[in-house]
């Protein structure tokens, strides 16, 4: 890695909205990548039903996901710069909580919450990129999960059709594929910011949301 690329990664502040199947795993990838600082936000506590896909352990059931994630991420890197917020994100709170962030990962579970976060970031915060996920339920079909650049400020990961519902579970492998697409899109975006002016060697799909 060239030094200015390393600089962008190690000085970036990245927000993670939600620490469930997506967010807890995106946080692991970005901590191992040594992204400068992570702002972790979730109001919820770890439940037994989370352990099939989220980066928590049985002895953490009942703990706030923010507290459990801080502990787990500091085991990966004791020097990690991490900021936790135990709040329910609303359109009013989002700009303040993520005020230092260059990129925000949308890692919510519910479709209406995804909508709220993306709409708020695009309409109320200037110059921030949001990386969102839609369509990751079930198993198999890894290659249908893709990363699309919808606009300069919105990157969308997923197969765009597989919502969760009765008989369509959320599973560790497929949620993990989506989470690591998301983390990889964040890494690529930060590196491209560092290489501004140099055309990116990206295979990210351009254009339309089907």
């Amino acid at each position: 890695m060239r030094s200015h690329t390393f600089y962008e990664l190690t000085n970036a502040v990245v927000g993670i909205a939600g620490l469930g199947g997506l967010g807890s795993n995106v946080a692991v990838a970005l901590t191992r990548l040594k992204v400068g600082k992570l702002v972790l936000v979730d109001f919820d506590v770890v439940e037994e039903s989370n352990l099939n896909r989220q980066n928590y352990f049985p002895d953490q059931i009942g703990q706030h996901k923010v507290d459990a994630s801080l502990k787990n991420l500091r085991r990966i890197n004791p020097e990690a710069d991490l900021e936790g917020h135990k709040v329910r994100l609303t359109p009013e709170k989002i700009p303040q909580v993520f005020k230092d962030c260059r990129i925000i990962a949308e890692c919510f579970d519910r479709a209406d919450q995804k909508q709220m976060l993306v709409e708020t970031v695009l309409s109320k915060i200037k110059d921030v990129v949001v990386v969102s996920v839609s369509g990751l339920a079930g198993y198999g079909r890894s290659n249908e999960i893709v990363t699309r650049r919808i606009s300069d400020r919105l990157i969308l990961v997923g197969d765009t059709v597989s919502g969760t519902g009765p008989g369509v579970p959320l599973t560790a492998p497929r949620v993990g594929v989506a989470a690591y697409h998301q983390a990889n899109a964040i890494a690529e975006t930060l590196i491209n910011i560092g290489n501004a002016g140099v055309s990116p060697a990206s295979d990210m799909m351009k254009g339309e949301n089907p």
Partner: protein
Amino acid sequence: MSATLKINGTEKTFDQGLPSTLTELLAQLEINAATVVAEINGDIVERKNFAQTELKDQMAIELIRFDGGG
């Protein structure tokens, strides 16, 4: 009177006239407004303004739909 919208990059012609608002368009497309981020001609339209957002011939509309799961 026929009119056209470009929806997610694809031209869609309305022979009986355009839906009058973004809310009406989403209803015609059977899309739940609570799960959609909308842009018109590159500008984001907040969901609270969908019902007041009037549609005009040749508008370019992006509808980004979200499915649950995470």
